[in-house]
């Protein structure tokens, strides 16, 4: 509706609303936002600030600050804490390194499996059943996942499914979560089991967006399945893949429950990760300031991922 210039109407809100309505808008906005903002500022923003400040101090066993030590906690974290980062051995070890293992293996395997299953399942009629089976572990708690897999990994072949399986091939039972050299992979794979469903569903939804006609046409033109995958499907998957990757990476930094329940960080701290270290240092060791520094490190690692996500969110069409 074209508007002819009416003198005096420039600057007034569109329509025939009175300015006082506009002011009332603001009041009502405050009311609507009020509870949420109060909670967010009080229970999220304030703790973030508090923790950052706290990380520059040392605490007593009641988690009260006894003295301020500047950056000492951070220095200690990266240079003097062999359980967190040990660069004196090869390959390096420590909670930080464990998270790197998670980043590489957990992310790539979940993605690869998700992709594989999405593509394969699309070709059969029982597709939704397969996807449901793969997705179910996402609904249960990480605690339950830890227990389910602790059972699978049990060192007694009469109990643990995995050891029973390999004993069929004449192999000796392995202490999957009892051995420092294997435990991380055991944990990672258990969590992959729980997370692949997400990758599958997201990628599957994206694949469905690719019109069947295009694919049929390509097939009639003689393109092989592999060509179809590489030339048509893959390029259109960059968005869903990035969505899944972001989700997986954030999971890696936050992963806690499954380790706490299955191994408690053991054996000997071999399966600790950053999120676990924070809780351990703060609540078992009583080193609140040190734990706060670890929490800040967690935040620092997540921020780039979050920034990337926001940029993507702004540039993409809003997902409804």
């Amino acid at each position, binding site marked *: 509706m074209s508007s002819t210039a009416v003198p005096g109407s420039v600057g007034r809100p569109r329509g025939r609303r009175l300015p006082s309505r506009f002011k009332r808008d603001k009041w009502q906005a405050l009311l609507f936002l009020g509870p949420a903002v109060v909670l967010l500022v009080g229970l999220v923003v304030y703790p973030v600030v508090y923790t950052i400040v706290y990380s520059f101090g040392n605490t*007593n*066993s*009641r*988690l009260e600050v006894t003295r301020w030590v500047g950056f000492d906690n951070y220095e200690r974290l990266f240079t*003097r804490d*062999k359980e967190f980062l040990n660069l004196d051995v090869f390959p390096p070890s420590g909670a930080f390194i464990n998270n790197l293992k998670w980043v590489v293996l957990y992310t790539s395997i979940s993605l690869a499996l998700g992709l594989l299953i999405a593509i394969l399942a699309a070709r059969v009629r029982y597709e939704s059943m397969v996807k449901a089976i793969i997705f179910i572990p996402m609904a249960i708690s990480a605690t339950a996942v830890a227990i389910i897999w602790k059972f699978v990994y049990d*060192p007694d072949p009469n109990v643990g499914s995995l050891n029973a399986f390999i004993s069929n091939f004449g192999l000796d039972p*392995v*202490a999957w979560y*009892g*051995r*420092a050299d294997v435990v991380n992979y055991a944990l990672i794979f258990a969590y992959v089991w729980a997370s692949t469903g997400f990758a599958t569903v997201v990628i599957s939804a994206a694949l469905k967006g690719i019109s069947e006609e295009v694919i049929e046409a390509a097939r009639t033109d003689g393109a092989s399945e592999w060509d179809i995958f590489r030339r048509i499907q893959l390029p259109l998957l960059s968005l869903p893949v990035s969505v899944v990757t972001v989700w997986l990476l954030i999971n890696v930094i936050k992963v806690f429950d499954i380790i706490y329940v299955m*191994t*408690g*960080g*053991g*054996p*000997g*701290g071999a399966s600790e990760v950053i999120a676990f270290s924070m*809780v351990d240092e*703060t*609540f*078992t*060791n*009583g*080193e609140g300031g040190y734990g706060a520094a670890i929490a800040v490190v967690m935040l620092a690692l997540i921020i780039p991922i979050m920034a990337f996500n926001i940029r993507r969110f702004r540039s993409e069409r809003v997902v409804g």
Partner: protein
Amino acid sequence: MSRKLMLPVAALAAFALAVGACGGDGGGGTAEGDGEITIFSLWGGSEQEAFQKVLDQFTKDTGIETKYESARDFLPVIRTRLAADNPPDVAIIPRPGVVAELARDDALISVEDLGLDPEAINENYSDTWTSLATVDDTLYGVVAKANSKSTIWYKPKSFTENGFEIPTDWNALLEITQQYKEKGMNPWAVGAQGRDNSWTLTDWFENIYARTAGTEKYTQLFNGDLAFNDQTVKDALREMLKIVNDRYVAGGIDTALGIGFVDGIGRVFSKNPVAEMYMEGGFVGGIALGEVNPDLKVGEDIDFFPWPQINTEHGNPLVGGGDVASAFVNNEDNAKLIEYLASPEAGRIWVSTGAIASPNQGVTDDAYPNPLVTKEAQQLKEAETFLFDGSDLLPGTLGQDMGTLLQNVIKNPGQMNSLLDDYQAQAEEAFAAG
């Protein structure tokens, strides 16, 4: 989803805030109690049942209700509750190191502040025991239970059948070990899995170290005055590896690190045993009879002998443990409970369950229900030298880390030196911070 729902939600929230704000408070000053005491410790299972009997009698005597809580992660729970000013009334703390730490941070109420007389509390305890509950010359609680860790459990029938005699020195024990193996049996079982069971290895080490390096060095080591990569430590570890190795432990080290200590007991004393001897403290008897195999006949199927000497000049010190009951909140109810736990009466009830031996000298031998516990109590009373479980004396998580250290040593004996160096670095930090 409409006004209909929002009103109840808002009401619920308001109600909750109101009720919650009237919840329990932190306390301060010797106030009157509220008639109920929360007691916190990490025992579950049969140990919990035994303790509950003591609490029940307390309630009968005083009319004060008690509520027992337990958690596997003792320290984290205590810390979170302290941080939130919501500590339990009384806690039974398994490590004197932790008692010291908490006392120094003003988290515990000293016996005097509770309105009790430290002399009266200590009447029935020898100095060794009271020193555990004493921090900087102030008494903070009472030693609630004690156990000997210098016991080795075996099957008397098996010994007789194989012509073995109770070893009085280390070489004899090694000899028996070897002979069992030659006869095709597994001489030992060990259960040292994960975070929760690694302490069994520390008991092995402590018993050996006390006998190879002596009482003085033992005290120095666990006080932080002697380095953990000292030669004496390495020597003790080498002795330990003479038994705790793939050859003599059922299932090898991998199994040892894969099963818990109750499973380990089961390997020797269950209905399908696969091994002959098990090293752990006096409480093994209670667990074996109570949980693993109630059909065991004491004296035939199960018994213990004391740790043999290794280096005769160091004799046979007793390594043992004890838990300290301490109050976090200052009120009359808690004071009464602490007083009660220090009394011979409480001790008698407790030991009658067969779960513990009491360090309380007022508890006579006839209170013990079975010969095993009586024997342990005697061992405790007659010990010439008593050394507290070293790993429990260490500050922070250093004790836990020692278990980890030993797990790594038995898995990779070749790396002993570097492992000890790393642990020493950790120890230095922990002792400096504490």
